């Protein structure tokens, strides 16, 4: 590690240029005031800049490395979109500013809502949710509101495939439902017979990702929709993998009633080391009245917020203001640069890159989890053989790949494939980059056979060797302690 910011300061030091002259607080009651200053860094401006610049160099990032992290869609984040979102009129606008001083922003928000409607085949969109998981929460809360409004209050279960993102069952439970898992079959599709057996009058709805978390298109989606709808349940589309089918197939046409879109995936807003994202929700006519607020509305040439009176059945607000507005602006700028043809090509080339990479790896002897299937925009390979033969885990291989200057794919997800990688190259990578990945991974696989110790003890070329996460959890050191 680098020396902590807390260990490079000196008492009384600070970035004086950032300090206004203190104000008089003698009118405040003394008992309301802080007695001892908080222990914060005491460093100069240069020290701060240098410290955090140096820290940044200990990160992998899309700007520096190939980052084929499955399910995360780590594609190029256009700089132009970032600059647009940072324009003074947007960055300086107060969220509660008067309507007259908000027309530019509201026009953008409304336009994004329209773009997302078109891309997903939904009747209405609210861009309020601040991440995919909050979009899921909103969607399930809408399903619950819909059933409750009909006096249909005995439905207790939300069905999720056992391969689903962990957020799916967690969101269902947050809404007061029980998450009921159904198995995914050996071909990567949901086990249809098991699903039919699980659906009933207790079913409030089902959450599906399509293409699924196994990197394949759920072929019987239309049948699944019929079964769930016939039982009175509704379908939720987890939009984590929308990138694969953007411009080719729309969730609205597949029978989904409500969905979210991860703008930080499909619409190329940067991940920021963990966030922010945005998770707009879309709904068909049936569920549109329940969409969360705020939303933008257009009347003639002017824009306004959707008022509570316009949306009496809304599940209400999920944030202090209007969601992650800056992310919405980035997504709009990106969507406008893509346009109609560009959007279709996103899905096409993401799929081309994934299938090419899958085929190359198959030829190199890697074991595919679903060898009979087309890849969507991502695919799963498994190292169960290597684990058995050489005692090497997928995590070991992931760490060794870091030594080659490539960020590891997602490991151990989906949970039902042992020792797996979920690999998502995205459409913005060149064929050369994919070929280099194949070379590197093949080299690691060779090393597994010739020098397994080297792989087990990787990484060797990074700022840290393998970190002990058992120690981190047993001996919790969550804040910097002074010497």
């Amino acid at each position, binding site marked *: 590690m680098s020396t902590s910011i807390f260990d490079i300061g000196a008492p009384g030091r600070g970035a004086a240029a950032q300090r206004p002259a203190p104000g008089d607080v003698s009118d405040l009651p003394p008992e309301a005031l802080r007695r001892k200053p908080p222990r914060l860094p005491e460093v100069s401006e240069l020290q*701060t800049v240098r410290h955090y610049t140096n820290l*940044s160099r200990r990160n992998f990032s899309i700007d520096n490395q190939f980052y084929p992290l499955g399910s995360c869609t780590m594609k190029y984040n256009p700089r132009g979109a970032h600059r647009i979102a940072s324009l003074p009129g947007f960055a300086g606008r107060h969220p*509660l500013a008067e309507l007259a001083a908000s027309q530019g922003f509201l026009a953008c928000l409304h336009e994004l809502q329209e773009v997302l409607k078109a891309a997903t085949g939904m009747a209405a969109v609210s861009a309020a949710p601040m991440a995919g998981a909050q979009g899921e929460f909103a969607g399930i809360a809408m399903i619950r509101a819909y059933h409750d409004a009909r006096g249909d209050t005995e439905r207790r279960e939300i069905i999720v495939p056992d391969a689903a993102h962990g957020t799916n069952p967690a969101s269902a439970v947050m809404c007061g439902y029980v998450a009921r898992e159904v198995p995914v079959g050996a071909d990567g599709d949901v086990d249809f017979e098991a699903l039919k057996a699980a659906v009933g009058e207790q079913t409030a709805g089902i959450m599906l990702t399509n293409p699924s978390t196994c990197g394949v298109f759920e072929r019987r989606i239309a049948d699944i929709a019929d079964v769930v709808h016939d039982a009175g349940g509704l379908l939720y589309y987890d939009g984590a993998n929308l990138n694969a089918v953007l411009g080719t197939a729309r969730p609205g046409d597949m029978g989904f009633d409500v969905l979210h879109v991860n703008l930080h995936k499909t619409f190329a807003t940067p991940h920021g080391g963990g*966030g922010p994202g945005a998770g707009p929700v879309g709904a068909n006519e049936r569920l549109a009245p329940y969409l969360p607020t705020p939303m933008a509305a257009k009347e003639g040439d002017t824009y306004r917020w959707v008022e509570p009176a316009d949306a009496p059945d809304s599940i209400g607000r999920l944030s202090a203001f209007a969601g992650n507005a800056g992310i919405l602006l980035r997504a709009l700028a990106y969507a406008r640069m893509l346009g109609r043809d560009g959007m279709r090509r996103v899905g096409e080339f993401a799929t081309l890159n994934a299938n090419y990479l899958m085929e190359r790896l198959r030829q190199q002897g890697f074991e595919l989890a679903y060898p009979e299937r087309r890849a969507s925009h991502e695919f799963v390979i498994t190292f169960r053989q290597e684990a058995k033969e050489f005692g090497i885990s997928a995590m070991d291989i992931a760490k060794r790949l870091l030594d080659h200057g490539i960020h590891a794919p997602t490991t151990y997800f989906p949970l039902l494939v042992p020792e797996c990688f979920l690999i998502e190259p995205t459409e913005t990578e060149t064929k050369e980059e994919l070929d280099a990945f194949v070379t590197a991974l093949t080299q690691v696989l060779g090393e597994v056979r010739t020098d397994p110790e080297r792989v087990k003890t990787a990484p060797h070329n990074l700022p840290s060797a393998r970190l002990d996460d058992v120690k981190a959890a047993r001996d919790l050191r969550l804040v910097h302690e002074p010497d």
Partner: protein
Amino acid sequence: MPFIPHTDQDVATMLDAIGAPAIDDLFDEIPASLRCGPLDVPPGESEMEVTAALTQRARRDEPGPCFLGAGAYDHHIPAAVWDICSRGEYMTAYTPYQAEASQGTLQLIHEFQTMMAALTGMEVANASVYDGASALAESVLMAVRANRRSRRRGVAGAGRETATIRVVVAGAVHPHYVETARNIVQGQGIRLEATGFDASGTVDLARFETLLAEPPAAVIVQQPNCLGLLEPVNEVVAAAHAAGALVIAVANPISLALLAPPGDWHESGADIVCGDGQPLGIPLFSGGPYFGYICTRREFVRQLPGRIVGLTEDTGGQPGYALTLQAREQHIRRGKATSNICTNQGLLVTAATVYMSLLGAAGLNAIASRCHATTRKLVEALTSIDGVQQRFTGPFFHECVLDVGRDAEGVAEQTAAAGITGGLPLGRWYPELANCLLVCATEKRSEADIAAYREVLCRILIHAERPAIGSASEGSR
């Protein structure tokens, strides 16, 4: 093809390797009936065209001096903050699951956790949730889990038939926060009950006592409250703890450099502190992205939602950082996770960490005291106008409620038309305060800004009726 690098030759070679005649064949597992035609969106534009079009829109919203706070504050942001945040290494990295390839982000978050714990007077902090309002919702869920009495009654994850769990909202807590929290927690059988505020604009202690008679799982109090006033937090904590309820404090982080930290309230201190990190170096951004923070005592760390970074060692015995306590989170614990949160607000945490490092305790204290003093000047200037007065007389931090003697909506509209963001018409939150504006002056507001606002307000309130009076004599009392 804006961001797709493939040449025709690449495509041909790749299809050949796959053994597919055309890209379209790669979609042959999608039933034909589910394929869509061209999307109903306009053709693509160049970066230059999009920039020009959206710049035109942004210009329409470019604000003049901002005297509006209400949960989002217009502070000065040192240039270094976003210069550092815009580095691709921070901006285009994913969540630091691969610790060895993410030591930068991990160490930064660990430093952030340390800073937030210090500011709030707590022992641990998480790596952020979405915003202040969702932080309150998560804090409520957390308090209910942590409060064993409530837990024995059976709460989270138990399905729809659980007994109602009560949480009391003491005093004037930001209505958007309360509404958000209510919307998020109600599915789990948790009910928020509000004391409202009394004539002083702070918690109605008599009503508070009544609501504690049947002990709630937790009590929420905001300091300074959403009307800018200081709540009697020591009394609130004493009463809540006496009743066996946990205390959730909502706090503006800038204020914590000046005001007593929640960990010091009464003798026992608040149990959970949450709020919005926007004042720490994040632009107003039309409402987001900001970030929500949650800090707590160490004993409740396993109930804390979101990511947490711990210091550990690598195999060579060298110190390093890793995400820890991940078994609380949805990717492992699924339906039994502490929260469904996955993506958080990492980049904004980066901004706040750089901001707090630059400012330090002395700098933050200077900003907090400056905001207070500037807001006092603003209040003095505006209340010198005939008919404008302070609605509540208790001490305030950097926001104040002014009664302008007429519908404040119209007044705010007119100040906006004059190029000034004049404050929040409080009728939107509390019908009984329809004649009131909530105003705020940060360290950025100059004497000239205040004078300009005064002049505009004078014109709106007085000039309209007596157009002949010159500005020099306006409103003298």
